[in-house]
């Protein structure tokens, strides 16, 4: 842990004064924080706090009414999700969003699609550049499969896999993109203790071995406090606190939000 807190560098992504509303509901109001290079940032908060909305804004799914996002020095407010993908932002979902009809291997290979260059003509022939490319990317995908220990389910359609493995395949697909910034929306939801430990280990390994910056939403406070370098707390679309796990733990506003305040 001490070793990788040293690597943390400059802000990779900056969120400035983001406000997002849907009709009468203000999902996010004036949120600002930053995600620094190589760190693990946890975004926490009670249900409906706007955590997932925040990720959706970063991804380009939602277009905020106000504020800007700066990613690698580039300022933007709204964009299409596939452009975010091109810039190096990968994401997993709270309720697994895998390609159910495809095998584990194909799911992860799809994560490499952006990096494939060969044109339609070679694709038709499945020869020359198209074939070389397919094999080259397969090699990379196999490395990820080894890394996440899912060799045995390579050929299984993901719809048939148990939930814990599906979560892992989704992480593999995101990793296949070799992202700079990885957004994980409740990577451990619905898992038992053992699976949570595995997943935590994978997240730490990804962070350490590939140097990927990770922002994750998680409800399990034990996990959050253990693995994250910094924590951002949201409540009702506002930012309550931002700091190291220990700072956040002692913050009165956070305690009130989670435990409630006595009525006078």
């Amino acid at each position, binding site marked *: 842990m001490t070793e990788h807190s040293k690597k943390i560098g400059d802000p990779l992504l900056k969120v400035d004064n983001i406000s997002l509303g849907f009709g009468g509901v203000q999902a996010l109001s004036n949120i600002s924080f930053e995600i620094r290079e190589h760190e693990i940032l946890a975004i926490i908060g009670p249900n409906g706090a706007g955590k997932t909305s925040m990720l959706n804004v970063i991804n380009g799914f939602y277009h905020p009414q106000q504020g800007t996002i700066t990613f690698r020095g580039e300022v933007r407010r709204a964009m299409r999700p596939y452009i975010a993908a091109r810039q190096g932002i990968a994401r997993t979902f709270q309720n697994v969003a895998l390609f159910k009809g495809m095998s584990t291997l194909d799911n992860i290979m799809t994560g490499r*699609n*952006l990096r494939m260059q060969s044109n339609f003509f070679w694709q038709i022939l499945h020869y020359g550049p198209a074939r070389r490319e397919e094999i080259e990317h397969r090699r990379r995908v196999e490395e990820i499969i080894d890394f996440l220990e899912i060799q045995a389910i390579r050929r299984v359609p993901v719809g048939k896999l148990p939930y814990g493995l599906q979560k892992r395949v989704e992480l593999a697909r995101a990793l296949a993109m070799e992202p700079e910034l990885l957004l994980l929306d409740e990577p451990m939801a619905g898992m038992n203790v053992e699976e949570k430990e595995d997943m935590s280990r994978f997240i730490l390994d990804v962070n350490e071995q590939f140097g990927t910056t990770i922002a994750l939403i998680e409800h399990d406070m034990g996990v959050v406090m253990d693995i994250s370098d910094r924590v951002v707390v949201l409540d009702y679309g506002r930012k309550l606190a931002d700091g190291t796990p220990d700072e956040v733990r002692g913050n009165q506003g956070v305690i009130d939000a989670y435990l409630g305040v006595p009525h006078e």
Partner: protein
Amino acid sequence: MLYREAGQFKTSYEADQAVFPIRQDRWVIAVVLIVALAAVPLVIEDYWTNAVMLPFLVYALAALGLNILVGYCGQISLGTGGFMAVGAFAAFKLTTMFPGMNLIAVLLLSGLVTAGVGVVFGLPSLRIKGFYLAVATLAAQFFLVWLFNKVEWFYNYNATGQITMPPREIFGFLVTGPAAKPAVKYLFALSFVIVFAVVAKNLVRGRIGRMWMSIRDMDIAAELIGVRPLHSKLSAFAVSSFYIGVAGGLLFTVWLGAAEVTEAFGIDKSFLVLFMVIIGGLGSVLGSFLGAGFLVLMPILLKNFMVGGLGISPVVAKHVEITTMGVLIILFLIVEPHGLARLWQITKEKLRLWPFPY
């Protein structure tokens, strides 16, 4: 016992990614190809060509095209009949405008024209999904049939409104017209189907196929890994319509030789091809062939059995045949909703373990 992959080790990703990784499969496909290319043309005569093989090949090609759109990209379409009409009329116009043009070029160009039309009618798919898209493509079906009926230019101001294919030769062999030899017509259509089946397989197992399937299974997640929805849906519409257009062209030029748009390319054709895709297996190249085979060959088998074997009058037999087909389709969908291709896959998996299933 014969179907075993034990002992067949793959030592490279290349071998692992082959279309037929199991040796026995390669033998089967080789035998099928040899029979289809070498043995069948020797014995085939007029009835078999026009009533069995050509319909099968033409519809297999159309089903393949529709399967790319519906089975791989998840965009439902009821415009198949209309798109086949575009292919047929394009082939007719091209071959009458440029009589010297090679028939292969005519058919490929007709495919391209249809691809263009398909992309235009595919544009709504960016906004609407599922049943609503089905209705939008249904509009394409009615509009196209109406267009080819109303605008006389399309059928060269012919009084009957019919289009008729003039005789055309390829490499000195007559392919179209009543004088063409059955074996030549059959081989011509077959070579088209083989080439296009290989191309389809290559497309769906590579980057483009994964792009289509990702849109089909979870479009939001697909967009997040960099798949452009516009690009993938329209490319699926283009490729699918290209196939369907060529199938329509083949239907008109080689199989029927003459066509009247409402009769040859009506809404019932759209449903027929969609049934083939569903019964054969969505998202399966093999399934397109099985579905086409089932829906083309089964009625003929039934008819010959009832009229020839049982001596039932042809009129009664026709009714019984239609009813039986309906019942069979429903039965099949109950037994295996994923189609014949899946049934075949399950059989193969069972065979691998047979006779010791545990």
